[in-house]
């Protein structure tokens, strides 16, 4: 059991891979914005990588534990403290009933994850504990934690003594910085851009806009020309060059809303009427989940084969091999 003394900016329960199978009804997967840190944090706490945990965004909460347990904190280093004493990141740390977990501010990255041995015990909604705060789906009564919110933890699969001191090896901890290189695949609508547009997208250093959240990341940079197809189409596509007849979006789509690219994140829309010339590789999306307003982003086009090896590396990182004790 734990209780929120202060809720933080928007602290929510998430699990991985989230709410899958409802995309055709417009219900997004949700889940952690940084799925790499989230899963590694769970491993440190002795949990299955996808177990329900807390996503802490920008401003951390204050949490009072009401029972002895083991916690792990990963993701952005928001200087976690227990009773005012710094605790290590990426490591199973024992806490006692009455202990107070607090946070400072992160120099790099913007989302921390808190895993508790056993995971958070909360009802599943459509198969998942994840929260889509904007539509009040899942998590803590559909929303973020509030002051006073009490959460239960499920029984740990391992004895607490075994969870204590589990650490993620240095080499697999994500490196958070203020500039990011994000891998994308071309498509589905790369043929709506000119070659110059594509070259510009991949050579420019984009700036993350402050209008970015769990639904989408806006990036700021130069304008695009758009190709022949975008300027010569039937009226039902819409009048702007970036408009197309509404169709299903992918999580990670680079959605061109007029001249503003918006990368669709885990709470994003399932369909709409703007072209997606690029799509972020699924195992690279975590980087944007840590990017904060003002950070710089470069995009590298990769092949399907390269995406496969990126997924392979991600998968082997998220495994017991990454844990030492």
């Amino acid at each position, binding site marked *: 059991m734990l209780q929120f003394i202060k809720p933080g900016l928007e602290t929510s329960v998430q699990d991985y891979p989230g709410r*899958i*199978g*409802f*995309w*055709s*009804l*417009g*219900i*997004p997967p949700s889940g952690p914005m940084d799925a790499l840190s989230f899963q590694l944090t769970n491993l440190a706490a002795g949990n299955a990588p996808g177990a329900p945990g807390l996503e802490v965004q920008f401003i951390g909460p204050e949490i009072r534990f009401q029972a002895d347990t083991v916690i792990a904190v990963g993701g952005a280093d928001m200087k976690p403290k227990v009773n005012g004493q710094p605790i290590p990141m990426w490591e199973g740390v024992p806490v006692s009933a009455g202990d107070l977990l607090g946070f400072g501010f992160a120099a790099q990255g913007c989302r921390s994850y808190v895993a508790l041995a056993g995971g958070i015990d909360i009802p599943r909604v*459509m198969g998942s504990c994840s929260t*889509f705060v904007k*539509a*009040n*789906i899942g998590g803590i009564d*559909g929303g973020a934690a509030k002051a006073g919110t009490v959460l239960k933890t499920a029984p740990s699969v391992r004895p607490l003594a075994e969870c204590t001191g589990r650490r993620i090896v240095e080499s697999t901890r994500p490196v958070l910085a203020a500039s990011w290189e994000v891998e994308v*695949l*071309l*498509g*589905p*609508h790369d043929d709506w851009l000119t070659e110059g547009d594509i070259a510009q997208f991949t050579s420019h250093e984009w700036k993350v806009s402050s209008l970015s959240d769990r639904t989408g990341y806006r990036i700021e940079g130069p304008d695009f020309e758009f190709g022949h197809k975008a300027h010569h*189409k*039937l009226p*039902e*596509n*819409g009048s702007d060059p970036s408009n197309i*007849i*509404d*169709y*299903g*979006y*992918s*999580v*990670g*789509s680079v959605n061109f809303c007029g001249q503003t690219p918006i990368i669709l994140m885990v709470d994003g*829309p*399932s*369909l*709409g009427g703007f072209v*997606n010339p690029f*799509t*972020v*590789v*699924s195992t690279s999306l975590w980087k944007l989940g840590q990017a904060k307003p003002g950070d710089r982003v470069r995009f590298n086009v990769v092949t*399907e084969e390269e*995406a*496969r090896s990126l*997924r392979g590396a991600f998968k082997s990182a998220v495994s017991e091999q990454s844990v030492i004790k």
Partner: protein
Amino acid sequence: MIFEEPRYLYSGDRYLLLEFGDEMNLDLNFKALGLAETVANEPIPGVVETVPSFATLLVHYEPEETDFATLKAALAERVASLGSTADITLPSRLVELPCCYDDPWTKAAVDDYRKKIKLIEPNPEATARLNGLRDVRELIKVHSTPQYWVAAVGFWPGLPFMMSLDPRYVLTVPKYNPPRTWTPQGTVGMGGSCTAIYPVNTPGGYQIFGRTPVPIWDGAQKFAPFAKSPVLLKPGDRVKFVPIDAREFIEIEQEVAAGTYTYNVVDYELFAVARYTAFFSQAKKDVGYSVSPAGETSTTTVE
């Protein structure tokens, strides 16, 4: 145009986007829904789910279980076995929704926009004028006459994008620019030739001219049609709007709040594209028609 062969596009490393054509045309949507239906009934290895839309089907897959080329080949086989659009039959429910047209609530939302953002023409009047209708009364008649086909659901959880099934009753309107910042829950509106219902209060860009008191999103899943998900309308369902006045709106709203409202849903019947097409090629000539275009009828009513 309708492509001779669909286009198969990469949409990241976990999604394939299949394009049947690049125009707004019910036939393309029937194909997308027909393909979604066969994939749901006989799963293709590695496919997680599909998202049908007007002219496309998005296929979400697990790349450790299949790859783009294998999936493309499997889908191409399914597309071939779909045959022509006329051969497609789709399970479809008919949902009756009371709708208060030219209502005070959407009027308030438009007035607020006119005051704060842009002085646009009141939406019911604009929709009537742009479609050559005499007045708002005629708009209500024209909009509430056809059945609407739910071509896609999304953008926001439970939001249906619907097309008139009757080619004699098709309205077309421009979208707002810039969008509204709020829209009352249950608002009925149009953008292009598409009718939508706002499941909850959200920003929006459609012309708005009516409101239903009946929830199409039930987060608590307390009403019977929401047993499986909080979403009422699924792709392939049909909607018929029944005009009500503001007094009836409030009565129904109270029934909804009390949990006593009974949804009027005609359960799954088979919608045969061939029959639909035949019906409307006849109906175009026959002004006095009043029959349902659906195929087999069933009278099961779901609460």
